[in-house]
């Protein structure tokens, strides 16, 4: 199995995440697309770990999961707070932050 297949698969997942981030207006969907991008990187790291027979890459995946879990906790708290203030999770409402 060439490593290119895993490379292209994780790249496709990453680009789908980018498309979702750019196309949607729901803050929660955008957050899920960020999770998708993180998982694409994880998949590539695991593939390289298998290729080089090195366990360090899998430890990095472990730390990425740790950071993602912490990020989700804080990010969802921010989204809940935003919903409580403006009763919407539409990111266009956040435009007024720049004024």
């Amino acid at each position, binding site marked *: *199995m*060439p*490593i*290119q297949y895993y*490379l*292209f*698969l994780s*790249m*496709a*997942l990453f*680009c*789908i995440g*980018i*498309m979702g*981030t*750019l*196309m*949607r*207006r*729901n803050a*929660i*969907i955008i*957050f*899920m*697309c960020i*999770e*998708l991008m993180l*998982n694409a990187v*994880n*998949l590539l790291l*695991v*593939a390289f*770990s*298998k*290729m080089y027979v090195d*366990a*360090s890459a*899998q*430890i990095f*995946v*472990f*730390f990425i*999961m*740790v*950071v*993602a*879990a*912490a*990020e*989700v*906790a*804080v990010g*969802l*708290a921010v*989204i*809940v*707070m935003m919903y409580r203030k403006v009763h919407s*999770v*539409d990111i*266009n409402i956040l435009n007024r932050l720049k004024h």
Partner: protein
Amino acid sequence: MGIYEVLFWFLTIMAIGCALGVILSRNPINSVLFLIATFFAISGHYLLLNAQFLAIVNIIVYAGAIMVLFLFVIMLMNLNADVEPQKSKLLQFAGMIAGGILFLVILAALRTASMSTIDKEATDIGLIANLGKVLFTQYVLPFEISSVLFLSAMIGAVVIGKKEDHVIEGAE
């Protein structure tokens, strides 16, 4: 085509199809369910790559904990109605073009790169004993620092999500 290739292509199609479902479905609940299916496909890839511990952790942490948190938030906010305002067609098209062009550029850059192949022989580096040895000898300092990160994230989530009663009373 052996069982490895069949499983690889099945999981690949499942992962990409469900990832497209995440960004294309109108209902946020469906998006969450599609994302859980994507995580299961990625866990299957981890199993094919002899990363058994990460496959289990991926299912427990991502599909089990994080996505349930998303579901909780969506259902608590009652967002499961299809009331999301859409971006204009032009902006959606621009986003699709931007992502697609990034994909094409990296594809063209890496298509002819010579890289070695993954051999199918099973390795045992993904087992929990070996990963634990590496984690608690070579990477013990980042491990401890990540506990501080978790503590700060927990405190931050509580502080941000707390209802500010006294402020509201003072404002009114």
